[in-house]
């Protein structure tokens, strides 16, 4: 295809024109006539009984239209919010499923839990009225600290989950793993915390809803990554509005990182209340609300052990993790630390035996769910940290130990001991390339030079694997998922030859409008400016599963390819008729149908026109119109892999870390738009480095107040924290999807925390520092150095 705009071309993003000129249309931009505005009164306490709520004064405040509390929902028989993935514990019992009322009824369970909804003529009036609502709280002790949440005597978050335990889950055979450990020449042990993160999408969550009294139809605009799934949940489980009477629109959405997958209380309330209020309702979260109520990410406490033989070959891996669920089970929370985490613990290695035990715990904190990478960053951090630690302990080069244990390229498809079957990959050339680009050989000299400037220089590896492109429906169904994981596409040509392509995926920053158009351009030869990618509206797009888990291209793009095949097949029939040839002789290339071996040809646009104005048409076996749809259910996950190398310098006087070089070599399968892929990798690395060095959600361990509740205290990574990244690719195409693509959206965030922390440990090892937890803030690093110096002095 034309190299300028087809597959493989660095096409500038179509959508950026409107984003960069301020003409994007986000939920908050919607001009809704007669709109009212909602404000949510939220719990100031981590745990309290609500003894009374008095709204009488507030209801009389100027501009107030309506006030709703949890009791109104009970009276209206509104269902609770759901967790859509049933994880069975090690005894085969489904996880504990505590009630999750849309608004608190008699108990609040985290700072930010929803207590009342105030609807008024203006946002400020709603907020004024909220201050006049009198809530009497009987404040109780709260369970905040994850490490002790499962201890005897910890305050229980829900009566349905005794001891705060949601499940005690395992994978692998513990006895076999123990036997392998008994024979090991070396065992490396590691305790680590995977720090809790707050997603911080640029656009806060927002919702608006309108009820049409005449038809009984609801429209909900929401900052959703998956509008069809949101509609399904609201219809089938929460509000009971039939699916065909509820339209969900996710217009331009400013970032999600997972946090906008889930069905939240706020949007549920806005939708429900629209019919009661009788006017449209708008709501946009304030940034402080986003900090408190967006689902947080990560938050694990883990103990891991790796058994090695005398040469460094991995014999077995044992992992015990406590995963924080927060105060309620969010939509996919249960799956993240199990099927998206423990199944990844083989990494890139041939470790023959793996056992993982995961306990999910409730705490009086915001719900925790999928966040960029979802489980896979946590798994990668465990593996890549313990591998580097083992290398240091056994005095084997960190790259060499990895290489020695890589799954050989000849072993694919490779069945891991933790359920997944890797479809393809070739890891050694990736690490070789990364080491070359990072000039690994020259590192020692750079370390010495840095020392002369008083800096401690370190280098760290992270060789990651991830399973994404979610997912084969049968597989996820057998593991407890409540939905299928296929994707849909519809290619609708217009009589004038341009085309609308409807996808069930949703773009909230990923650039689908460009990448998917490149696919259409490449496969059908339609010029880029004749292609419109339509997404995010249940009324105009076929049912789709949305965007998360690096699935849009691998699954959604594959559906588009299938639909293009249908267009071509139908077009051939029409073209054959027009050219008076037999269908078998018609070929399609560069947007033109040709009769093989002749100079007869007819362009696709003409075929499309004939299909809509079928005066001369093969009516006997061909329907008019050029409008095809396709659903694609993947045969397997896709398995992007790569190696990152981070090089950094620490100022031991202040504990400050500066990243001086960062290399990432990835296998993403075939690449449609390298510029967009680079953007995804850059953003991912930055988010992962943010986790490693800066970000951390901190709750007061006694009161459960969110201390890191604003940008004054929650450190976001910024451009000046980074050098230019060095990126590269070593491609093995995915063998089971038609594009040969893997996913690239999460890889950067999955791999980078371990690369950074391994570099930190490498830098600090010479001065005796054994372990630094994330985030390795200046304070944290300085304290670790102080601790090592104190120990050395003793």
């Amino acid at each position: 295809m034309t190299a300028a705009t087809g597959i493989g071309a660095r096409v500038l993003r179509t959508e950026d024109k409107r984003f960069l000129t301020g003409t994007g249309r986000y939920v908050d931009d919607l001009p809704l006539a007669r709109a009212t505005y909602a404000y949510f009164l939220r719990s100031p306490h981590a745990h309290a009984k609500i003894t009374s709520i008095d709204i009488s004064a507030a209801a009389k405040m100027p501009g107030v239209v309506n006030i709703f509390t949890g009791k109104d929902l009970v009276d209206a028989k509104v269902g609770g919010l759901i967790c859509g993935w049933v994880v069975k514990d090690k005894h085969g019992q489904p996880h504990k499923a505590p009630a999750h009322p849309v608004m608190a009824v008699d108990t609040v369970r985290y700072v930010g839990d929803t207590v009342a909804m105030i609807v008024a003529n203006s946002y400020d009036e709603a907020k004024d009225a909220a201050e006049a609502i009198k809530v009497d709280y009987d404040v109780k002790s709260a369970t905040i600290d994850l490490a002790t949440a499962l201890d005897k005597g910890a305050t229980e978050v829900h009566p349905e989950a005794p001891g705060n335990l949601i499940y005690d889950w395992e994978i692998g055979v513990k006895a076999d793993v123990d036997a392998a450990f008994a024979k090991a020449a070396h065992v490396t042990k590691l305790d680590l915390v995977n720090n809790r993160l707050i997603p911080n999408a640029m656009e806060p969550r927002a919702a608006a809803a309108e009820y049409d009294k005449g038809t009984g139809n609801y429209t909900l605009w929401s900052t959703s990554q998956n509008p069809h799934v949101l509609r399904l949940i609201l219809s089938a489980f929460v509000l009971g509005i039939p699916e065909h009477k509820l339209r969900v629109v996710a217009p331009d959405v400013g970032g999600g990182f997972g946090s906008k997958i889930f069905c939240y209380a706020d949007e549920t309330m806005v939708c429900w209340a629209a019919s009661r209020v009788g006017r449209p309702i708008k709501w946009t979260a304030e940034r402080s609300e986003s900090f408190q109520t967006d689902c947080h990410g990560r938050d694990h406490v883990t103990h891991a052990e790796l058994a090695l033989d005398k040469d460094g070959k991995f014999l077995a891996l044992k992992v015990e993790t406590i995963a924080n669920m927060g105060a309620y089970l969010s939509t996919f929370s249960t799956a993240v630390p199990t099927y998206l985490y423990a199944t990844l613990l083989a990494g890139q290695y041939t470790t023959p035996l793996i056992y993982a035990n995961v306990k999910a715990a409730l705490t009086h904190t915001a719900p925790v769910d999928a966040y960029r990478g979802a489980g896979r960053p946590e798994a990668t951090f465990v593996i890549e940290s313990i591998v580097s630690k083992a290398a240091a302990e056994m005095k084997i080069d960190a790259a060499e130990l990895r290489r020695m244990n890589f799954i050989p390229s000849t072993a694919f498809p490779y069945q891991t001991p933790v359920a997944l079957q890797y479809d393809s990959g070739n890891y050694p050339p990736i690490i070789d390339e990364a080491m070359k680009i990072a000039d690994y050989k020259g590192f020692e000299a750079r370390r010495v030079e840095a020392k002369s400037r008083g800096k401690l220089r370190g280098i760290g590896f992270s060789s990651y694997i991830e399973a994404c492109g979610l997912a084969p429906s049968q597989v996820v169904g057998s593991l407890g998922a409540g939905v299928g994981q296929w994707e849909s596409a519809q290619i609708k040509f217009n009589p004038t030859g341009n085309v609308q392509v409807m996808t069930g995926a949703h773009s909230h920053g990923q650039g689908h409008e460009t990448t998917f158009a490149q696919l259409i351009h490449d496969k059908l030869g339609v010029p880029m400016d004749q292609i419109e990618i339509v997404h995010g509206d249940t009324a105009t797009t076929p049912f789709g599963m949305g965007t998360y888990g690096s699935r849009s291209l691998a699954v959604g793009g594959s559906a588009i390819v299938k639909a293009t095949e249908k267009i071509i097949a139908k077009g051939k029939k029409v073209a054959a008729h027009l050219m008076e040839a037999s269908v078998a002789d018609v070929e399609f290339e560069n947007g033109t149908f040709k009769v093989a071996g002749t100079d007869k040809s007819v362009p696709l646009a003409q075929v499309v026109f004939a299909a809509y104005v079928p005066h001369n048409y093969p009516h006997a076996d061909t329907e008019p119109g050029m409008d095809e749809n396709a659903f694609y259910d993947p045969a397997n996950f896709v398995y992007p892999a790569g190696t990152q190398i981070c090089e950094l310098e620490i100022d031991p006087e202040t504990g400050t870390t500066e990243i001086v070089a960062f290399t990432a070599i990835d296998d993403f399968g075939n690449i449609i738009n390298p510029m967009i892929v680079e953007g995804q990798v850059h953003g991912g690395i930055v988010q992962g480095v943010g986790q490693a060095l800066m970000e951390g959600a901190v709750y007061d361990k006694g009161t459960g107040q969110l201390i890191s509740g604003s940008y004054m205290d929650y450190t976001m990574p910024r451009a000046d924290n980074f050098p230019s990244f060095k990126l590269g690719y070593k491609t093995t195409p995915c063998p089971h999807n038609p594009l040969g693509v893997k996913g690239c959206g999460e890889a950067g965030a999955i791999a980078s925390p371990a690369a950074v922390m391994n570099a930190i440990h490498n830098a600090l090892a010479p001065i005796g520092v054994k372990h630094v937890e994330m985030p390795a803030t200046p304070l944290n690093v300085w304290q670790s150095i102080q601790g090592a110096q104190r120990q050395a002095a003793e």
Partner: protein
Amino acid sequence: MYDFAYHRPKSVADAIGLLKSKPEARAMSGGMTLIPTLKQRLARPSDVVDLGGVKELAGIKVEGNNVVVGGMTRHADVATSADVKAAIPALAYLAGHIGDPQVRNRGTIGGSVANNDPAADYPGAVVALNATVSTNTRKIAADDFFKGLFETALGEGELITGISFPKAEKAAYVKFPNPASRYAMVGVFVAKTAAGVRVAVTGAGATVFRVKAMEEALAKNFSSAAIKDIKIPADGLNSDIHGSAEYRAHLVGVMARRAVDAANK
């Protein structure tokens, strides 16, 4: 935010008049602190008196041995002023490292100093350079101005009209930024002026403070070696998730040494 009446006077006299006639009125210069405070409903002024229209308050002048910065002067203007760069480069450097470009183009020296945030940068310069704060009624010496956490010597309805900084023979400011907010977690301004050597620390305590032991040592020998053994007690220093009191005490030493080295360059 709550409702309030908005005024934009053209002179200091009119501004004072408004502030005096409305007991719940608040002055606003760049609004960089005041607006977020209003949006979070942490303040409820009846009236906001915007000083943005008061021309006489903005601008930088060199008067003899002093650089006089008007109360409404934006950080960006101080950072890029040729006069400031020539007379006290450390002051221009300080202003250029406050917040981000948006903040520097709105925030003002008067607002910053009047607010006296414990993590603000300017108080370090005001004290180390032994500056004089002018108001509509009087002149206040730096040492008498900063009283405590968000507390100053300013009275009700008293406005900072300008701050006069004596030129320094040597001066430097070194800031260890809070990783999240990038305000000063510890900032040390070291200056050698006609009044002697001063070491002022911001960010570490409830308000800016001087380190007399360092000043004495540096008066004898203006080199970082002279202060390398001076330990700052952690007692009473700020402590939060970004820095314990011990860490801040340690950083005061490190930043002070780096500031002296920078001043000697």
